[in-house]
């Protein structure tokens, strides 16, 4: 929680904390080691690594939020429909999810980016699609459990519409596992999107995205290790923050897991 709060505070107050603009390049100072003017050194075109790193935190948080929001929304809708209506809707949607699960996530994301074209937005869309099945499965399982409970049957008996039952009676009872998964999903989405950028399938040249910063400098690791150390550590600590929070939430929201 502390790690994430720090990251959120940083991303909100980036303009106050940076020492240089993220696109400000001074080629005469390329690959300078950390100093008083460039706290984390400069990159191969003389841009300030520290300032780019801070701007990058905004991008990473945005990637995580947008990608997870997309997969939670679509996945939850699929899960709700499949679990609540059952029958052919369930079969159709869940077989679709099986196809998405038949491919390793990185590979599926690469396939989607290949179709859509390489860009940060498309990388976010790809990561979002990759994680849809997880949320669909969670919601479907939760709905199947909840829909036979007495208060749902009672709501149906008094003539409540399907959407009313889903929104008022079913969804609030499925939130706990969804919140846990979404928190862990933020970390996974940030990792996958950074991976896509690292492979050249995400952020465009020049964007201060952490995965791309690594891609641009990994061949210079011996010459200028600071250009590789900083963005990697940033990705690692942000993902660790989300995973720690997700684990903590799971312990609180799902006491059964806590015992093991």
């Amino acid at each position, binding site marked *: 929680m502390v790690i994430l709060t720090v990251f959120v505070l940083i991303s909100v107050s980036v303009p106050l904390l940076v020492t240089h603009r993220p696109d400000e390049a001074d080629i005469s100072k390329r690959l300078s080691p950390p100093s008083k003017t460039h706290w984390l050194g400069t990159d191969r075109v003389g841009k300030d690594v520290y300032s780019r790193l801070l701007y990058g935190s905004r991008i990473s948080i945005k990637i995580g939020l947008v990608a997870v929001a997309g997969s939670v929304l679509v996945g939850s809708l699929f899960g709700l429909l499949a679990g609540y209506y059952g029958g052919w809707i369930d079969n159709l949607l869940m077989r679709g999810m099986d*196809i998405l699960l038949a491919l390793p996530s990185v590979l599926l994301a690469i396939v989607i980016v290949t179709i859509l074209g390489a860009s940060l937005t498309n990388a976010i869309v790809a990561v979002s699609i990759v994680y849809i099945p997880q949320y669909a499965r969670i919601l479907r399982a939760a709905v199947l459990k909840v829909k036979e409970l007495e208060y749902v049957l009672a709501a149906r008996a008094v003539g409540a519409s399907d959407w009313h039952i889903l929104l008022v009676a079913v969804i609030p009872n499925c939130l706990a596992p969804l919140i846990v998964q979404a928190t862990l999903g933020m970390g996974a989405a940030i990792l996958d999107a950074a991976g896509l950028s690292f492979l050249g399938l995400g952020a465009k040249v020049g964007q201060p995205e952490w995965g791309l910063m690594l891609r641009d400098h990994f061949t210079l690791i011996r010459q200028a290790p600071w250009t590789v150390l900083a963005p990697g550590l940033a990705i690692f600590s942000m993902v660790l923050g989300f995973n720690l929070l997700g684990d903590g939430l799971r312990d609180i929201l799902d006491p059964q897991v806590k015992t093991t």
Partner: protein
Amino acid sequence: MTAYLIQRLLSMLLSLLGVSILVFWMVHLIPGDPALMILGERANEAALQELRQQMGLDQPKAVQYARFLSDLSRLDLGRSFRTKGLVAEEIGWHFPPTAELTLAAMMFATVFGILAGVISAINRGGFWDFATMFGALAGVSIPIFWLGLMLILLFSHQLGLFPVSGRLDALLDLEIERQTNFMLLDTLLAGNLAAFADAVWHLILPAITLGTVPLAIITRMTRSSLLEVLNQQYITTAYAKGLSQWIVVGKHALKNSLIPVITVIGLEFGYLLGGAILTEHIFSWPGLGSWLLKAVEARDIRPIQGGVLFIAALFMSVNLIVDLLYTYIDPRIRVPSATV
């Protein structure tokens, strides 16, 4: 058991059919004319038309898909426009390096993951438990492409212990005839032990990089599964009989607790196939991942289709084998499944 097997095979075929539709549609979803992509901007209209006809792009979609499936049934995955090679042959050639890497990574993850999980479980609540669990959480949070770079920086550049990239020293490579393209096997077949040792040496850093996430997951799974078993009465009985902790854990508890771990190992195989793309990119490992990435960069559609289908089939087959193994090992699952 037979009914279960048939059911699983049918469901796998259905999923593969779904993936085949997905990869078939890729050609049509990718913006731009595939014929233009293959022949380049300077191609004249007659040549483009001829290629479109050759590829069947002028046919209705259903006919194109039927043709795609029929080619697939003969393992004809077409030709790469970049290398002009047969895709099926290229997959056959690039798969061994990836297989070698993923198997080595899985071996590393399994051995150390189970060991760490056991240490964590028997020290529950203690320092080692906390340290192992934090390590496992860090393991699933680390970007593996960065971990690989850090390993190279430390062990290759700073300490000079391991090679930076590749599968074999350039000079030794000249002495080895690539019969199977499994480097460990080829060096042994050549009877060249120095080359074999060098191949193992080249494999270590990529395997650690790729194996770290599965290592973390296997550690967590082993710990929770072992803790569950240790709470059972027969373990209390074993302790009551005066057996030492190592005998109780090693002989009585671990065997039973490893059953769910096997499933995780199977599931992680899919992760390894995906993660191999990143790892191979860092270590210049000439496997399926690097090959696929080059095809993606060039938008070379046939290798992408073939590679994706191959990996999906492989992933599903491994999952099927693991499920069957699971049913075989755990009689509690075997009995009900026999009646399905």
